[in-house]
Structure formats: C-alpha cells, structure tokens
C-alpha cells in the first residue's frame, strides 16, 4: 500500500502577543509586546496509507485543526517533514488542492443565495473538472446522496442534513484522493447521521478515497474508522483501533441477566461470585453483574450463572467509549504511560 499522508516530527508554535489592559496598555503592547510562545503541535508523527479511514480525535484546542491546516498547506509548520499525496503542502498548495476535498461541518462552501446546482457548477470550473467527468460524477453523487429533491433550492433554505449532503457532493466532484472532514455529523439527527456515514463508507470502499475526519462523536469513530488517532496538547497519545482502546481502558463490562424466577437469596449469590465479578443490582429476576475485561471470559460467566439459575435472557453492555475517551482527556490515562504510544 502506498502512503498518502506522511508527517514526521511536525511542530507548530505560535508567538502570541499578550495584550495589556487599557488604552495605555494597548499602546505599550504595540511598542514593546510581551510575547509568549504557544506550542500547538509537538513532534507529531502520522502515517496514513491510501484507502484508510482514520479518525482524528481530541478535546477542543488539542491541535487537530492546526494539524489539518499543516497537512493542507494553509499553515507552514515550524519544523518537521510533511508530504501529502507526494506533494509538499505549503509550496505546492494549489496543486495539492486538486487532490483533496475538504468539508467543514460548521460552515459550508456553497453559495448561500444560489441553488445548490449553481454552486456545484461553479466548483466544476474552480477545480477544472472536464465536462464529461463532471456530468458522470454529479449523476453518481446525486443518486447516492439523493440530491435531486433539493438541487434547485437555494442553499440558505436547505436543512442542515441536506446542506451537509450538498457539501459532500461539492467536495467530491473533482475526484479527490483524500477527503478531510471536520465534524461531518455535527448537529445532525440520527437518520441524517446514519446516511452520511453510510455514504462515507461507500465512497471509501468504491472509490478508494482516503478519509481523515475529526469528530467529537465517538459513534462516527466506531462505525466508520478502523483506526483512531488521539491528540491532546499537540501530541499523539494513541494510534490504533477503537476496540483495542476499549479493551485497555474500558474497565468493566456489564452482564444483564433475566432469570426464570425472581432471585431468592441475594447474599448467597454475592458470596459465591467468581473473583473479579460483582453484583451491581438485582430487581426481581433481573441481575446486573459487572466483570473486568481480564477476570474471566463472558461465556464462562454465563455458564457459571446458568449452572446455578435457570436463565431467561442474557445481554451484555460494553463500556461506553465516550466514557473511556473522557477519562483519557481528564485523567490523562495515556499521558501517565509516558512513551506508551502503541502502533496498531
């Protein structure tokens, strides 16, 4: 497989002038600015293969946008090596632009007062898409995204979900090899989210488009991206699958069992439970048991329970990945491990 994004030891620091309060302070700030350096991105290493679907995750201000800006050539890195689609992003920005598509969930690139169709038509010229390819792509995209129902409507009258579909079509008209998505599902309802995800998966599968997306929605990551990068304080904290991180930090899983009859002796059960398993609650025939990832396999726990009580129904609850990520941000789980960045 060929590498499409390669970033080695990429750094970005900004010099920020502190403003002193008041009119005199403002004047002093101009003459003798008090400057401090902010390190937005520190020695970041990213390598993405063609055709991958990767999520870039991190709290606000973690350095995600700065990273994307450096990968697209908008920002000059303070140090390090960057190649995207074999090009130097800053020096060859205009050339690179023809190879990438970008969608910002928060703001549209469509012309507000004009029908969607007109925006797409103009973008064809901005990206120099040959007529035939444009027609074919537009036909294909409007089938997949069902654009026909609103393609003649001015963009300002579209719903957020429709606008997002329009923006996705706009970003893909020129057949980019690489698609950056910044919070593509933000503010959308469940149906619209599912539709966008389905579309992205199919673009990735059928066209082989590499997709790098930033998101705060862990469902996006779980349902779309086999690989996830966690960035915080401008550093890469994790590079691997969602499953792996759940296994490492997920803590307890929960077994919900419904017995044939109500549980008679709660304390007897509690005493008997295998090591690493604890009873969370019992209500009539319904039990909730939590057990550690490594304490015993789920099927053994079910067998153990089944040998003692007639079971009516069993379900498992996986640890919420949102919870895990929150703990990573707040408690610095990965930071404590020092150089514990695991390659997948």
């Amino acid at each position, binding site marked *: 497989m060929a590498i499409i994004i390669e970033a080695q030891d990429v750094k970005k620091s*900004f010099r920020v002038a502190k403003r002193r309060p008041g009119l005199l302070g403002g004047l002093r700030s101009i003459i003798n600015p008090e400057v401090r350096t902010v390190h937005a991105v520190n020695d970041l290493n990213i390598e993405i293969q063609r055709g991958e679907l990767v999520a870039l995750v991190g709290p606000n201000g973690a350095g995600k946008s700065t990273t994307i*800006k450096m990968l*697209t050539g908008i920002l000059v890195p303070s140090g390090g090596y960057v190649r995207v689609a074999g090009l130097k992003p800053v020096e060859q*920005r205009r050339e690179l632009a023809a190879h990438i598509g970008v969608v910002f969930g928060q703001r549209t*690139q469509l012309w507000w*007062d*004009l029908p969607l169709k007109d925006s797409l038509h*103009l973008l064809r*010229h901005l990206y120099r898409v040959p007529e035939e390819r444009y027609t074919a792509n537009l036909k294909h995209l409007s089938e997949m995204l069902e654009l026909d129902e609103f393609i003649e409507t001015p963009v300002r009258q579209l719903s957020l979900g429709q606008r997002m579909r329009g923006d996705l079509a706009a970003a893909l008209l020129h057949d980019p090899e690489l698609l950056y998505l910044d919070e593509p599902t933000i503010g959308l309802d469940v149906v619209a989210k599912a539709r966008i995800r389905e579309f992205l998966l199919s673009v990735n599968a059928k066209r082989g488009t590499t997709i790098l997306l930033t998101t705060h929605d862990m469902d996006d990551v779980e349902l779309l991206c086999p690989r996830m990068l966690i960035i915080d304080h401008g550093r890469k904290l994790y590079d691997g699958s969602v499953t792996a991180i759940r296994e490492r930090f997920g803590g307890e899983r929960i077994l919900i069992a419904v017995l044939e009859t109500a549980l008679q002796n709660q304390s007897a059960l509690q005493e008997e439970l295998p090591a690493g398993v604890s009873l969370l609650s019992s209500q009539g025939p319904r039990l909730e048991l939590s057990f550690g990832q490594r304490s015993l396999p789920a099927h053994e726990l079910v067998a153990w329970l089944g040998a003692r009580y007639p079971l009516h129904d069993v379900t498992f609850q996986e640890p919420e990945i949102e919870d895990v990520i929150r703990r990573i941000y707040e408690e610095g789980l990965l930071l404590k491990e020092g150089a514990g960045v695991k390659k997948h």
Partner: protein
Amino acid sequence: MRMFLYDARLYFWLISMQIRAQWQYKFNLFLDIVTYFGVTALEIISLLLFFIPFPTLLGWKVGEVALLGSIMSISFGLAELVGAGIDNFGDMVRRGEFDRMLLRPIGAFTQVIGSDFRLRRLGRITQGGAGIVVALWFLPNLHWTLTKVLVLSIGILSGTVIFVAILLLGATICFWTIETTELTNMLTYGAREMLSYPLTIYNLVLQRIFLFVFPVAFGTFVPACYILGRPLPFNMPGEVAFLAPVIALIFALIASQIWRLGMRRYQSTGS
C-alpha cells in the same frame, strides 16, 4: 500566463454568480441603486453649493469642480463595485472563509476579488455620469478633442485601479492586525472626499502624497487639468496625464507584493 488567463476566466465565472445572486432580489437591487444614486448626488450638490457665495475656488469655476468631482465619482464607484470583495476581507478571514479559499486550486486574490461584485454601486457611477453632463452644461466653451476623451477614460480606469490597490493594501493589514477598517477608510473615503476638490488647494505635503505616494490624483486631478487646460503643480507638463496607467500599474504591483508578504505571514501565524 496561461495560469493568469485561467484565473481571469474564473473571475468572470465568480462575478457572474454574484450578479445572478443579487439579481434574485431585483426590486431590492433597484431600490439600492436609486438610493445610492440619491445619496451620492447629495454629496456633489453640497460640494457645488460652495459656489453660490463664492464664484471661484482658487480660480476653479463651478463646472470645472463638477467635472473633477464626477470623474472621482465614476472611478471610485467602479472601485467600490469591483473591489467590494477586498473590502470584506477582514470578515472573510475572521469567518474562516479565507482558509477555504486557500484549499482551492485557484489564486487567493482571484477568489477574494471575485467574492463580491456590488451592483448597487452602480448608483454612484450613474451619478458620476450625470455629473459630467451637468459639468458640460456649466462649461459650454470647453473644447473637446479625441485625445481629451482618451485622457478621461484612461484617467478613470487608472483611478479605479489605484483605489482597488488601496483597498488591497487595507486588506493586507488584516494579516497583521484585525482592526484596520478605520485606516483604510481614511485612505479611500478620505482621498475621495479631498480629491473632489482641486488638489492645489492643499498644502504641498498633501499634494505630494496624493501624487507620488497614494497616486489617486493621477486618476482624477491630473486628467481633469489636461481636459481643462490647467497647469499642474510642481511644473509638471500636462502630458503626464498619459502616464496615469503606468503609475496605476506600478502602484498596483507594489500593493500586490505587499499582499504576498501578508499571505506569507498569514501562513505562518494562521491568524
């Protein structure tokens, strides 16, 4: 060169979209143009009221000042019409639209200037045209030649280029600091206001500034003097009126270099 031609074609695509968008609200647009015509006509009328108590302004008669003011109105109106996108640049940066432009395979300047084309500025241009008719009515003895018409046209176009370049310089300051509108307004509206009067009423420093630093006078005062057969300050021969396009291009070139410098700064600071 091919790149430039392509960008030029795209510019026309971009503004034709703008025109179509504004055309959607035809009645609104019409009202805007009429209102703008009225407001700018009042500006000229108040300028001319001066001549009721005083017959001349340092030897300039009412028709002559009306001609000068109308040339100014047309070239400034054209600059406002074409350069509206540049005028909005600060907002564009703040809203992140400029980043979006950097993600497209076309020059950033083409996209910035193509992002707006404010048709309602036609009001000022129409007013300038009407002003010239009024001026000619005041100046029945003015002898017109083909050369004078040529000087008038290149003067207006050069003035437009110079004003657009000043707008661009103002926009470029956004790369360094965000609050810049006042400085640009001083240069654009200030220059327009001042140069609606004959340049020679100001002190020599200001005359030099408007001739050689921000050469707005080359688009208005210098061609007006040529047409009216008036002497130029600093003993310049009247024929320098033909240099207006050269001066405008040099000024625009300097502005575009400073813009490039600003772009480089933007890419290293991202703000």
